[in-house]
């Protein structure tokens, strides 16, 4: 079923590309030749009190800056709910406490990293910073995490329990978590040029990290530049047909057909095995629709679809498709309806539909 109209009034991202305080919208991108991609650190002290900054882990800082950018853009200083999604949560603090515990045989431990290891640390810290006492939830289901947060926000708006909701997706990469996941071919073992990631033959994805937050609103205002139409997830499809039916049904629910979509942003991540699903769709179901890719910009992480939404809403705001993400020169006038499709190893599939504010 369709939920109530939900508008996007602001967005902010901290990813391995310059996205904070930029006049240009992904016109030029940073080239890497690395084992994994890390975020371009914004000037954190411009956003966070220096005294607090010292005690904050990277993932918390990324979250706070992207949340603040989104709120500034939306022109709000409070929200009615804060929803965060994170697949792996605070990996740096978890590793710190876990390693110390194992290496010191459960002795000489200090609480700081344990306290900061819980998945809801980002949501809690944002609430603390804003003095926000409202609904606050953290979703932690791999590549469903951000999608669950979006769905909850849309439902709250539909129920009129919230007018403005801050929603974000965040994950951080560490040397250790990267190394561990190279062991099971989730991530590439050797450095890879991000510009050539889609043709890299090493097993696994080029991994990365990032944070993107959005201010969703029940009402359209002069700040509104996009409309979030829907989000849906599919778990372990048993056939290609089930996946295709899922995509068609999602569009039908939103009273659209494939021909209405101006651009599909897909989550190819350089994994030669699992990228086939995207490639098959690009030459099959999505054959007549322009496609774009984005993980050469940010790498793979569980909540990367939040950056895809940042790009999609940015396209609607700037009214052009940067050549850095489109797979072929984009020849349509101005895109109005953008579909985001992402999957994790054919287990967790998701769709997000975003349009211009007035698109029906």
């Amino acid at each position, binding site marked *: *079923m369709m939920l109530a109209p939900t508008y996007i009034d602001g967005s902010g991202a901290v990813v391995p590309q310059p996205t904070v305080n930029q006049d240009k919208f992904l016109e030029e991108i940073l080239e890497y030749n690395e084992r994994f991609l890390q975020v371009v650190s914004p000037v954190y002290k411009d956003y966070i009190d220096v005294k607090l900054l010292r005690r904050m882990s990277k993932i918390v800082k990324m979250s706070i800056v992207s949340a603040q950018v989104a709120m500034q853009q939306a022109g709000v200083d409070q929200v009615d709910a*804060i929803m965060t999604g994170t*697949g*792996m*949560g605070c990996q740096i603090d978890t590793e710190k*406490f*876990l*390693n110390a*515990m*194992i290496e010191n*045989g*459960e002795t000489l*431990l*200090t*609480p700081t990293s*344990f*306290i*900061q*290891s*819980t*998945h*809801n*640390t980002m*949501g*809690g*810290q944002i*609430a*603390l910073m*804003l*003095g*926000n*006492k*409202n*609904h*606050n*939830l*953290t*979703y*932690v*289901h*791999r590549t*469903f*995490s951000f999608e*669950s947060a979006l769905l*909850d926000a849309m*439902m*709250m708006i*539909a*129920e009129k329990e919230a007018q403005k909701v801050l929603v974000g997706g965040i994950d951080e990469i560490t040397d250790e978590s990267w*190394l*561990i*996941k190279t*062991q*099971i071919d*989730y991530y590439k073992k050797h450095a890879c040029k991000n510009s050539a990631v889609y043709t890299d033959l090493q097993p696994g994805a080029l991994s990365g990290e990032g944070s993107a937050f959005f201010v969703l609103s029940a009402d359209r205002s002069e700040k509104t530049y996009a409309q979030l139409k829907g989000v849906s*997830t599919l*778990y*372990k499809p048993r056939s290609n047909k089930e996946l295709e039916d899922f995509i068609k049904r999602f569009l039908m629910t939103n009273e659209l057909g494939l021909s209405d979509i101006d651009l599909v942003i897909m989550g190819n991540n350089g994994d030669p095995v699992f990228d086939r699903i995207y490639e098959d769709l690009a030459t099959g179901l999505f054959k007549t629709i322009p496609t774009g890719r984005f993980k050469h910009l940010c790498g793979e992480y*569980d909540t990367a679809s939040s950056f895809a939404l940042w790009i999609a809403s940015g396209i609607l705001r700037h009214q052009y498709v940067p050549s850095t993400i489109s797979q072929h020169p984009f020849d349509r006038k101005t895109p109005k309806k953008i579909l985001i499709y992402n999957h994790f190893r054919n*287990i967790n599939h998701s769709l997000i539909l975003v349009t211009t504010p007035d698109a029906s």
Partner: protein
Amino acid sequence: MTEGVVVTGMGIVSCIGFNVDETLHSLMIGKTGIGKISILDSIHRDEFVLGEIKLTQKELMEKLGVDLNLPWTRTALLGVWAARQAYQSAGLSTNSGKRIGLVSASTVGGMDRSELYYKDFLTDAIRKNHIDTHHAGNSTEMIADDLNIHDYLTTISTACSSSLNSIMFGARLLRHNLLDAVIVGGTDALSRFTLNGFNTLMILDHEHCRPFDATRRGLNLGEGAGYLVLERTSDALAGKKQVIAQVAGYANANDAFHQTASSDNGEGPFLAMQRAVAKAGITAQDIDYINVHGTGTDNNDLTEGVAMKRLFGDQVPPFSSTKAFTGHTLGATGVIESIISILSMNNDKVFPNINFKEVIEEINLVPVSQLTDLHINHVLTNSFGFGGNDSSVVFSKVPSNISGL
């Protein structure tokens, strides 16, 4: 009540029982499950008591008859055990044409295996199977696969309030007609990670915990899993389902005070309770019993008490913490205490706040410390956690004209 959401199935596993009946029995006879550590391999074995489920990993796998070739975490096994009970008690079936979802909560995820195998992940081919069981959604997927659930799944983690939030989110999915039935709850296994973590915070009692007692010294950790099956009231009635309780109200608020401590005036807990009662469409005076969070830490019990007094004035309803039975089961605690609250309501009994002797002077609130008969129509249950995450849920009795279906 056609627009409402009701409970049509329950499943629970904790140190006081491996199903609903055993849990009720332990609560009625006042038998705690907390005791000496015999399963968790920790250097703190003789220092603390825990609410352990006295089955090893191998025994759990055999008991559940699961595929031994799959990389099971203890968190997933406990979850499967409780979720199967809930699924069966609600009479769900995957070929009924109903859209069935699973919303589970966990704080430690697969940490019980990660902490054992972490240093082998880079070297040992067999242990590598466990690399991808670390993330918090793993247990949810293992449960979904066990029950053949495909239509929707997600996982929530808001520290110790996690599984009350799964109830809220699940209820919302039903209200929006995105699902026809949803299994909601949470699972958390004991791990050295959490035992040591709470130990560094110096909020673990070496003795049995004493919630709401002036001499309380901290909490006892426990482990377990619990799940409810929720359905829309109209569907449950049309399907002539057993209706166990109504999910009448719920709310989630943030204390916005400190990463781990609660504010002195219990603002977050107060707002969660106040909003949950309002959402239920009743007044605070209608609450007959509160199953409090009551961990036994200095900070929680004091601030929870302050918050209750703010909401209820000098008419604080009978209340008890059942954590001295089960231990604090972290991500599972909200749903385990929801099930205990429902048992309380449906049996018209208040289960005792065991180990209570001396009233906390600052709040002067006396918990119910003996098994007590009480007619209960509306029960409120609280769960509060790190990150300022505070949640409350109100369950209401099903009117007798429909409960007998």
